[in-house]
């Protein structure tokens, strides 16, 4: 193996590990935010409360592509009776106006990849972009 190639591979490995480490940190931050702000209503299993607080686990909205809607609900809360996946939910959701884009991205990434959910992670840049569009 030439020295040049060795250096290149090392750089790639370093970058990848730094990247996964950063991702793990993002998920840890997302988990922490979930536990302090979201868990009491949406519950430890993400199952919500029937007819009151919407479930996040298995929710088509949560794993879906309308990131702007998800960001808006986290920032502004929600106070409408709403039908989701065939069930009605009535409770008001607390707004989180103080959360920074990076925190919103982390908590979204966390709920989109917890319990049975498997969906793309969200970046702070995406959150800023959809926030501007409004």
């Amino acid at each position, binding site marked *: 193996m030439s020295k040049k190639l060795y250096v290149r591979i090392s750089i790639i490995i370093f970058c990848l590990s730094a990247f996964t480490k950063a991702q793990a940190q993002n998920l840890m931050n997302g988990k922490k935010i979930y536990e302090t702000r979201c868990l009491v209503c949406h519950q430890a299993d993400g199952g919500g409360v029937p007819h009151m607080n919407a479930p996040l686990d298995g929710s088509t909205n949560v794993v879906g592509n309308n990131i702007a809607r998800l960001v808006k609900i986290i920032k502004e809360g929600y106070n409408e009776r709403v039908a989701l996946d065939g069930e009605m939910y*009535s409770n008001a959701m607390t707004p989180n106006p103080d959360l920074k884009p990076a925190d919103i991205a982390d908590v979204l990434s966390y709920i989109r990849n917890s319990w049975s959910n498997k969906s793309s992670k969200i970046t702070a840049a995406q959150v800023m972009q959809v926030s501007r569009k409004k």
Partner: protein
Amino acid sequence: MKNNFIALCFTFLLVCVNVSAQNNAGLSLPTGFKATKFADSIGSARHIAITKNGVLFAKLMSPNKEGKSIIRLQDSNNDGVADKITGWGNYGGTGIYVTGQSLYATSDNDVYLYTLDAKDEVVNPLSPKTIVKGLIAKNQHASKSITLDGNKNIYVNIGAYSNACQEKDRQKGSKGMTPCPILDSAGGIWKFDGSKENQTYGDGKRYATGLRNVVGLDWNTQNNSLFVMQHGRDQLNSFYPEYYSNEQSAELPAETMYELKEGDNAGWPYMYYDPYQKKKILSPEYGGDGKIEGGQNAIDPSMFFPAHMAPNALLFYTGNQFPEKYKNGAFIAFHGSWNRAPLPQEGYYVAFVPFKNGKPVGNWEVFANGFSGLAADEKIMNPRKAKARPCGLAQGPDGSLYVSDDNKGAIFKITYSK
């Protein structure tokens, strides 16, 4: 060999059937009590009411798959299971009450009156009289539960569309409003004439105020008083972690029972009841810190229960079937908590409080448990795991007790024999 196998299967089947008949529909009950599943999967059954002929009516939270929201259930062969189930109505709601041939049912805005014929069949399913209309319903605490006194007055709960009357509901740091503007049109019990049509706020009277949300209420005929069960406030630790730990927030405030006289104020949103200090405590949204007392003008509860268990029905037992200790006592259906997370949830059972001359005497106890379908020693960590959640109570003409579940819509019938 084959015959043996078939015989074995048959025996096994018999044993299974026998066990299911003996297992009291999955409920655990005091000695001498039995339960059957009177009905199952009828839709989200909120409150229930029974005629003097034993026909049961259930009000559904929203229309079921057949598009019906008031379900009539009859057990014509008297085997403890409804065999004739019909329905009508296309509006969701919670309240239902029957007296003689009058059947009252509520949407989240209105109270309707239907007439029953001699066979307890509804006469006017499409054209009920509108008794009360235009009541406030803003998603949170929108359900209208009802009871009547002996003089055809109807008492309607109008729940507060808020947790603690903050300027911004359920938002950390937002102050409580003084005076709380919600109390003009909600957060209390309103009294109307049960026979007059088209009444609204101006025609009724605010009978009692300062009640965040009442779902269970009943008239006590022994001392001619209205009793209600309040749902206490949520999220003390989410908004005030400096005063309340997760553990304290799971146990605060108490769920409270009040005896209400006209003009009474139960103190919401300015205070809550602390079951450990046994005091009315100033709400943190109004400057409280978990210790400062509040509610100087508010009445004391008649009885209090562990926090967040969500009492959804109250029934004074006037039947003769159950043992003497139950006579005139209160049954309470606790829907079960969610606001105790991350700690285990509580409730999901029917409790009993002994009463004498219209006053509670002695401690409350769990009467019927096991609605969740989980093992007796298994804690409910997440509300969606509970199979059934007790929501309504009714007493049959023979003194049997019926319990409705608003998850999938089971109705349980509880009987007693020596």
